[in-house]
């Protein structure tokens, strides 16, 4: 220790704050700035979508967009080519998106839920340690692979079995894309539901088993009903990701905007149209290009709403049993 002996000055604070220097302030600035990037990105998304969307709605009335039932986003090559009128009614795209997402959820919900129930309630640690990562792998496979597989294997299979059975099934049937997408979101549903099922307190299971219910009865009548809100949340999240999925539908769904609910027909989706509109013609002011941004904004708003609701439900559910 120091050998200093100096006068003790009354009133001087020995622990006075020393200037922390520029360094600390700079570090904090960087940290805060980086956290704000998340906000910036959101703002950036909204901005980049909104400006173009507003310009789009200057050309196409918003009501025509939201409630029009005819989608044909074509503007002619030049004035002297007589093109189609260029209709921007998003309803067929929305129904198409919903149809495919619905099919996907029809696949993913039973598969995902049943897997989750099995893994959470019945599987031994061995099965779990083996099946879980494999299921997760389904989510890790890029969607372009699903798209390829759907277009190359699933769609012809459905078409062939359809024609064998005497049905006329389009090769871009909503069904093919929906199945591939359904499989892709299975792990999303199963891992979220697994979480949810695990957070149902053991005391409820004990109560049911103590009454002489079998394990399956307990799961069906007590655990699952108790987990319903959480499961609903996870299904919403999965739906949102199905709605936003792009590559599968680009590769396996159609481009034609049919307003139909028949899963054997070709429909197109919001994401397919965005890709088609923007990978073809790239002028930056025609209604055609701008409509892609309007669709993007629509997609963003819908998925955002679904996510916010879903996260609320899931968090609320988890708090309930904490």
């Amino acid at each position, binding site marked *: 220790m120091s050998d200093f002996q100096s006068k003790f000055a009354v009133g001087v604070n020995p622990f006075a704050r020393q200037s922390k220097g520029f360094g600390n302030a700079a570090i904090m600035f960087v940290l805060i700035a980086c956290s704000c990037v998340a906000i910036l990105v959101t703002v950036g998304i909204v901005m980049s979508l909104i400006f173009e969307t507003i310009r789009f709605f200057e050309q196409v009335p918003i009501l025509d967009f939201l409630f029009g039932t*005819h989608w*044909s986003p*074509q*503007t*002619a*090559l*030049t*004035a*002297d*080519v*007589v*093109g*189609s*009128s260029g*209709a921007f009614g998003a309803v067929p795209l929305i129904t198409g998106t919903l149809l495919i997402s619905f099919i996907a959820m029809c696949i993913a919900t039973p598969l995902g839920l049943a897997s989750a129930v099995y893994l959470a309630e019945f599987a031994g640690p061995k099965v779990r340690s083996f099946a879980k990562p494999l299921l997760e792998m389904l989510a890790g496979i890029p969607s372009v692979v699903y798209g390829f597989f759907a*277009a190359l294997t699933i*769609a*012809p299979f459905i*078409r062939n079995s359809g024609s064998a059975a005497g049905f*006329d099934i*389009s*090769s*871009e049937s909503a069904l093919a894309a929906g199945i591939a997408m359904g499989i892709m979101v299975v792990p999303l549903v199963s891992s979220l539901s697994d979480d949810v099922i695990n957070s149902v307190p053991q005391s409820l299971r004990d109560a049911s088993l103590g009454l002489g219910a079998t394990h399956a009865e307990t799961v069906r009548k007590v655990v699952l009903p108790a987990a319903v809100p959480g499961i609903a949340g996870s299904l919403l999240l999965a739906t949102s990701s199905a709605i936003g999925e792009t590559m599968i539908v680009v590769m396996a769904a*159609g*481009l*034609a905007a*049919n307003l139909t609910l028949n899963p054997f027909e070709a429909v197109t989706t919001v994401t397919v149209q965005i890709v*088609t509109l923007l*990978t*073809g*013609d*790239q*002028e930056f002011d025609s209604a*055609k290009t701008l409509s892609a941004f309007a669709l993007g904004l629509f997609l963003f708003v819908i998925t955002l709403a679904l996510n916010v609701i879903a996260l609320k439900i899931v968090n609320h559910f988890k708090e309930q049993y904490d």
Partner: protein
Amino acid sequence: AIAMSTSAASARDEIRIVGSSTVFPFSTTVAERFGKETDFPTPVIESTGTGGGLKLFCAGIGEEHPDITNASARIKQSQVDDCASNGIKDIVEVKIGYDGIVIANSRESDLLEVTLQDVWLALAKDVPTGTDGETQPNPYMMWSDIRPELPAKKIEVLGPPPTSGTRAAFAEIAMEGGCKTFDWIKDLKSSDGGAYKSLCRTIREDGAYVEAGENDNLIVQKLQASPDAFGVFGFSFLDQNSDALQGALVGGVAPEFEQIASGDYPVSRSLFFYVKKDHVGVIPGIEEYLAAFANDDAWGDEGYLTDKGLIPMGAEERSAVAKTVADLAPLSM
């Protein structure tokens, strides 16, 4: 005067090409060879459709704008004006050959034999009622509704959208060709050109004609899957997929290489690309690329582009175009 933008870190050293999906396979093939056989980098080619390509092309001068655009229909005056308004005064037009437009379906299905009139009646928005001067919205749902000899199948045609050069050529040659077989319509041409054009070239929008994007490959795949549907696209795509698809006979003529080259097949059009002269000498390799294209090894009778389905021009025409290319003679409309 060239005002090169300095926004990017360094000047672009590869040629950038945009435009028609029909020309895409030809230009990529040339580009690929060009990249291999010379020290220049392989040009970067994006398929954007003829219209989209011209829009990008005409957006301005500078390295952020493409140097060349492919077109499956000749540039229109309005587009030249558009270019000019952005400072692009000198455009070199290069005609590279011909392409037939075919109406094809899967080999699983029967071969179709149609006339241009059938095609127009099947796809027009409005068709004559039978009384001269009167039209009605297209009532035909089945091919056999048009003529009993045609197959009793639903009319379902997958075709390119209006931004595509194939669509423009199809409307101009096939549709209009079928349309003017009605005498009163032909007379309309001189009396009311606008009405004539819109009657002849407007394609129905009730679902029988399905606009299938710029990507002809996709149409091909879709036809393979749905045997009742027909597709409209360039001959080269049919050629590439002759194992799966067959082209309908139009007016009794099959869409085959020789028939198209000889002009017997009624629906064929010229293919082009356009070069921004201001970029020549700035972006390295443009002249050499042009030379590689305008070369009998490529576009000649036995050139490698014929393998890709390009139908070559006659020898004289070729040498005329080659001379334009060599001189970089600008287009004048």
